[in-house]
C-alpha cells in the first residue's frame, strides 16, 4: 500500500463536486461517481453518468427519499448500462419522474458489484490499485464540520449507525508541523500527525474542504468500513450464440 493516494490528482478521473440539494440521493451520487471514475480509469474515456436515471429507475422509483448504493448498482445491471448526465440530467427536485432508461444511449456499463473487506489496509490497497469506492458513514459530525481530519470515538460517532454514502477518493497522512489552529476564536494545540481518508461529499463545493472531508484512518471512524462497495465496470458482454437445437 502506498503512503498516500489521491485520485483527485489524476487528470479527468474525479468529476466536479455535486450538490444533492433537497433530494436525498447521496447513494445515487456516490454510486455514479464510483462507476464513472472506474470507467475513466479503465477506458481512458471521459464519461459523466446520469444520477437521475438511478433515481427514476430504482426499483421503488422514489430515489429522492433515500436508498443504498447497491440499489444503484442493481438499477444499472437491470437497465443494462447507464445513460449520460448530459442526455438525462439531474433534476434536483423531490418529485418522482418516469424512468426514461430506454430513451437514451448508454455510455457506461457494469458487470458486477462487490462489497470489500472491512479491513482499512485492504481498502487502501484496493483503492490504490483499482480506483475510488463508495462507503457509507455516520454523518452526524458533518453537520458542524469545516475542515481537517475528524478523529472520533464510537461514543461520539457510532460506527454502527451509518446513514450517508460518499465516494472514497484517497488517503494520506497529515504532516508534522501543522499542529496549531485557530478555532472559534481561540487557538489550541494539535495532536500527533494522523493517517486519514479523503472523501468526496455531495453537498456542493462550498461545503467542507471544497466539497471534500477527511476522516481518521485506522479506527473505523464513523463506520467508514461498514459498507465499502464498488462496481466492476466493463463493456456489455455479448451472449455467445449456441447452435444447439432446443
Amino acid at each position: 500500500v502506498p503512503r498516500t493516494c489521491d485520485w483527485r490528482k489524476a487528470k479527468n478521473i474525479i468529476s466536479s463536486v455535486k450538490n444533492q440539494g433537497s433530494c436525498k440521493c447521496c447513494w445515487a451520487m456516490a454510486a455514479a461517481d464510483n462507476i464513472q471514475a472506474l470507467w475513466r480509469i479503465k477506458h481512458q474515456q471521459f464519461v459523466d453518468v446520469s444520477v437521475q436515471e438511478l433515481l427514476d429507475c430504482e426499483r421503488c422509483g422514489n430515489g429522492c427519499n433515500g436508498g443504498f448504493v447497491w440499489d444503484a448498482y442493481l438499477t444499472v445491471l437491470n437497465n443494462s448500462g447507464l445513460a449520460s448526465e448530459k442526455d438525462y440530467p439531474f433534476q434536483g427536485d423531490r418529485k418522482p419522474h418516469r424512468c426514461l432508461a430506454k430513451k437514451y444511449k448508454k455510455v457506461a456499463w457494469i458487470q458486477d458489484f462487490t462489497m470489500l473487506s472491512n479491513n482499512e489496509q485492504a481498502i487502501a490497497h484496493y483503492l490504490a490499485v483499482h480506483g475510488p469506492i463508495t462507503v457509507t458513514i455516520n454523518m452526524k459530525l458533518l453537520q458542524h464540520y469545516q475542515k481537517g481530519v475528524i478523529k472520533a470515538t464510537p461514543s461520539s460517532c457510532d460506527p454502527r449507525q451509518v446513514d450517508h454514502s460518499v465516494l472514497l477518493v484517497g488517503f494520506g497522512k497529515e504532516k508534522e508541523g501543522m499542529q496549531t489552529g485557530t478555532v472559534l476564536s481561540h487557538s489550541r494545540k494539535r495532536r500527533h500527525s494522523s493517517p486519514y481518508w479523503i472523501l468526496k461529499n455531495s453537498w456542493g463545493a462550498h461545503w467542507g474542504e471544497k466539497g471534500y472531508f477527511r476522516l481518521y484512518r485506522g479506527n473505523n471512524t464513523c463506520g467508514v468500513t461498514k459498507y465499502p462497495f464498488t462496481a466492476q465496470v466493463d463493456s456489455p458482454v455479448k451472449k455467445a450464440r449456441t447452435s444447439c437445437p432446443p
Partner: protein
Amino acid sequence: DSLLTKDAGPRPLELKEVFKLFQIRFNRSYWNPAEYTRRLSIFAHNLAQAQRLQQEDLGTAEFGETPFSDLTEEEFGQLYGQERSPERTPNMTKKVESNTWGES
C-alpha cells in the same frame, strides 16, 4: 445581579450579529419572527455544540458555522440522511478477501 446584567448584556447582540452574517452568507430568510427566534436559538445551540465537538475531537478537524447551522440534529438527519437503516446487504454481493490483493 448588576455584574451579571453587565456581562450578559452584549451577548445577545453579538449572537444576532453572527446570525445576521450567517443569513447573508447562506442566503437564509425566515418567514415570521417566531421562526426567526427559533432558528436563532438552534443556531446558538449548534455553535455551542460545534465548540464541544472541537474540544472532544482527537484529530485536527475544525467545527463551527456551516450551511446546516440553523437546523436541529433531527432536521439535518431527516434532510440528508438515509431514512431506512440497512439491515442487510443484497445476497449477490461478495467480499473480496485480502489474500487476493497481491494478484493485481
